[in-house]
């Protein structure tokens, strides 16, 4: 299975064989990939991992009975036994007609290969020597930077994956993409504590990654912020949510927006379409078409064509995330299940200017544990952060929780910064909320 053509041939064979065995509908996805990671510490490579992988995912429907299956054992005999088992499993199950494949008219590539631009040609030229140089460059810029370093390490990784999908409704899709990551971490000496922090960046193109100097600067800045951390008194404070950490709070929306929780009547957003769930400065777009976007994709998990979708417009809920299966169960048109890139459009006012206008606020730079409840919308997370006065750092915070409800928190969003975070599939600028409950001392 060395080429996409061979992968396609295998996927077609699997669909054909499963139909011979009695399946009415079959979907097969064959994938293969390569990845490398190099981690350095103490002036040498600590771990180097390299692998090529492969796999097959098959879902079958026979008499409306459904099974989904995956295997990494692609030897011909093993594969045939596996397919017999996949089809055979349906014998014991009850029908679920909602599982039928979508209308082929809805399926296909929603954005061109050229526009997605996910497959950096530099990946094929990226050698072991180049990775070693890259990892060493980051580590060498961390070592000796301060006198209180206990440990520091650097990390580089890259990979490329290819997949082909063949469905009995006629869909045939081929996709490929590369990715690169780089970062590191640092631990400092501080009495009873050993403050630690790190910075990791992901990109579709090697040349889009920050320079080793920029990575090392950011790691040191983040760990230095952790020195002298302690809890502030419990109470309500304005919350400044750092751009890179916004995904955790935005992510609380994911469950209640999903077709499954709407179907189970376990969504605090049920019945809220067209209603205000946030302030007028809150807009959220799911955009799978962003060039080089980490969450970009040509089609969604049901192979529906990718397209940008506005979920919240100026505070008003416009769309849920409903896949084909739950669309049928709920009797509505599917939008798309899951999420691709989540984008909060940036504001016009520089973030620093917004912060300068806050007499006292908590800047949340990271989270530690916590969870949320999709049916009530309530969340409670541990946080790391900084105490700000007029935008100036006056203290480092730890041992604190932030608590609220997703049905309420975005109503408190008063300003959106101008600094979207590009290194994630959640592209949000810094967000500023009024009167948020923090617990500390």
């Amino acid at each position, binding site marked *: 299975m060395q080429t996409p053509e061979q992968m396609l041939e295998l996927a077609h064979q699997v669909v054909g064989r499963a139909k011979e065995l009695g399946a009415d509908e079959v979907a097969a996805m064959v994938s293969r990939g390569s990845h490398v990671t190099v981690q350095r510490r103490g002036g040498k490579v600590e771990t180097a991992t390299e692998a090529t992988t492969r796999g097959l995912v098959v879902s079958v429907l026979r008499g409306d009975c459904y*099974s989904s299956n995956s295997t990494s054992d692609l030897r011909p005999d093993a594969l045939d036994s596996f397919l017999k088992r996949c089809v055979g499993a349906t014998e014991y199950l009850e029908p679920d007609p909602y599982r039928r494949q979508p209308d082929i008219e809805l399926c296909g590539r929603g954005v061109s290969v050229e526009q997605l631009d996910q497959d950096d040609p530099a990946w094929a030229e990226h050698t072991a020597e180049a990775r070693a140089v890259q990892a060493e460059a980051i580590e060498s810029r961390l070592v000796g930077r301060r006198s209180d370093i206990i440990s520091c390490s650097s990390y580089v990784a890259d990979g490329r994956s290819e997949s082909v999908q063949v469905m009995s409704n006629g869909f045939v899709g081929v996709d490929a993409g590369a990715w690169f990551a780089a970062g590191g971490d640092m631990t400092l000496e501080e009495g009873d504590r050993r403050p630690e922090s790190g910075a990791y960046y992901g990109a579709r193109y090697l040349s889009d990654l920050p320079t080793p100097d920029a990575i090392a600067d950011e790691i040191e800045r983040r760990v230095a912020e952790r020195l002298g951390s302690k809890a502030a008194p419990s109470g309500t404070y304005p919350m400044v949510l750092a751009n890179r950490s916004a995904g955790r709070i935005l992510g609380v929306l994911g469950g209640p927006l999903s077709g499954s929780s709407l179907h189970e009547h376990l969504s605090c957003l049920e019945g809220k379409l067209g209603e205000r769930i946030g302030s007028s400065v809150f807009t959220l777009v799911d955009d799978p078409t962003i060039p080089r976007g980490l969450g970009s994709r040509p089609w969604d998990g049901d192979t529906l064509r990718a397209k940008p979708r506005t979920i919240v417009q100026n505070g008003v809920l416009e769309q849920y995330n409903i896949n084909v299966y739950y669309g049928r169960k709920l009797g509505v048109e599917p939008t798309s299940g899951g999420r691709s890139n989540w984008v909060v459009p940036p504001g016009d006012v520089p973030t620093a200017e917004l912060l300068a206008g806050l007499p006292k606020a908590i800047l949340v730079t990271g989270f530690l544990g*916590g*969870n949320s409840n999709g049916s009530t919308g309530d969340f409670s997370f*541990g946080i790391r952060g900084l105490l700000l006065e007029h935008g100036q750092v006056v203290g480092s915070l730890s041992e604190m929780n932030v608590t609220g*409800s997703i049905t309420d928190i975005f109503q408190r969003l008063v300003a959106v910064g101008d600094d979207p975070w590009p290194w994630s599939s959640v592209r949000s600028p810094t967000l500023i909320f009024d009167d948020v409950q923090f617990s500390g001392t």
Partner: protein
Amino acid sequence: MPATPSPVVRPLDWFGQFGVDRDAIRRVLSEATAHGADDADLYFEHTESTSVGLSDGAVNRAHTTVDLGVGVRVVIGDQVGYAYTEDLSLESMLRAARTASAIARDSGAKQPQFVEAARDLPDFYPVDRHWSEVDLSVRVPMVRDWEARAFAQDDRVRKVRVNLGDADKHVLLARADGTIVADYRPMTRAVVGVTAADGDLRESGSYNVASRGDLSYYTADRQERLVTRSVERALRAIHAGSPPAGEMPVVLAAGSSGILLHEAIGHGMEADFNRKGTSIYADKLGKRIAPPQVTIVDDATLPGARGSLNVDDEGSATEKTVLVEDGVLRSYLHDRISARHYGVDSTGSGRRESFRHTVLPRMRATYMEPGPHDPSEIIGSVKKGLYCEVFANGAVQIGAGDFSFYVRHGRLIEDGKLTEPVKDVNLIGFGPKVLEAIEMVGNDLEIDEGGWTCGKDGQGVPVSQGMPTVKVGSLSVGGGR
């Protein structure tokens, strides 16, 4: 499909069907150590997992996963070269071995001598039947029965979701010194989720059980618990509120409260963090870190426990490791790399998620030994505080020492009595300070039967945890009022 196995699996028996024989092992290990090695191993794994699911009144989905592959590891001091392949052909395994061996180039290490030695293992998870011998026709009625019982239990139950999953995992460890060991590792996990409504209020609750066991694990009592507890939790959540915010005394119920140990101290005991000096406990061996009533262990030998292991994932014997004895830190959790670094024996804590991952020191079943107090005495000692019963997840920062855990269900304690139910609150604390603040330890140790999975460096491994009722003098509670 592989042939029906005998209950006792000898080395190579299982992987012979994939063309793996002694000669292949010898050649691949020889290639892996061609540039020299302090240590090297091949980790073969074959896992077949099955799950069936019920929703909207029908058992209407099944999922099967087959995972097969080998990981090749070459160790030079504390440096690791790792490669894996899902293709067990000799050519592919030799390629992986060459890749992994690159780390040893110019290291000056010698090639180890391969002297074959198979080893007998203890059996902490004896089973009569492998899961591959249990037909779906056996699983489906079980799932359906749990649903029916949940609906019958209370007319406020609106929906029931059930999932029953299991796996047969076979591993074969071949080490560069010639040791060959094989282990069969069963796993099963069942979860019942219930949605209940009272007027306009609607909530969900769930309960799950997990074990390295076979079908006999599902005793009548356990099935009853699975159903009744999930219904109880959904009903309780409907009228539960949020506790006050701030620092207060906290009583942790027996059982899954072991998550506190897992986060507050367990990860900090993993010797890789200590070897690198990044754990807050790195210079605390032999020192008092908790009051004398506190003894904490990490145990791979509990019969049938989800976290138990007959042998660890680099071929070391497993054990019950005492981490903290009467308040004094006694041992870290070691894999071979850290054991060599500290000049001690491995504690059998070297684990990996699968053949796709290299070995790290990890927890197995972490719990606190029981103390002298009656649970009612502990609750009675608190004037105003929080009683934590059911936990969802936790997290820790190893160096900073901060940890947190999320309480799904609890109660307020007022004047020594359990009162109003509360839910969905995160608790956060500084590990060493919280250990020092353990004021009372109950006599009611319970190992939680739930299916916990621990995450570290992107690897998830099954673990168990347990706790007697424990009082912590003060913790920060992320309440909403």
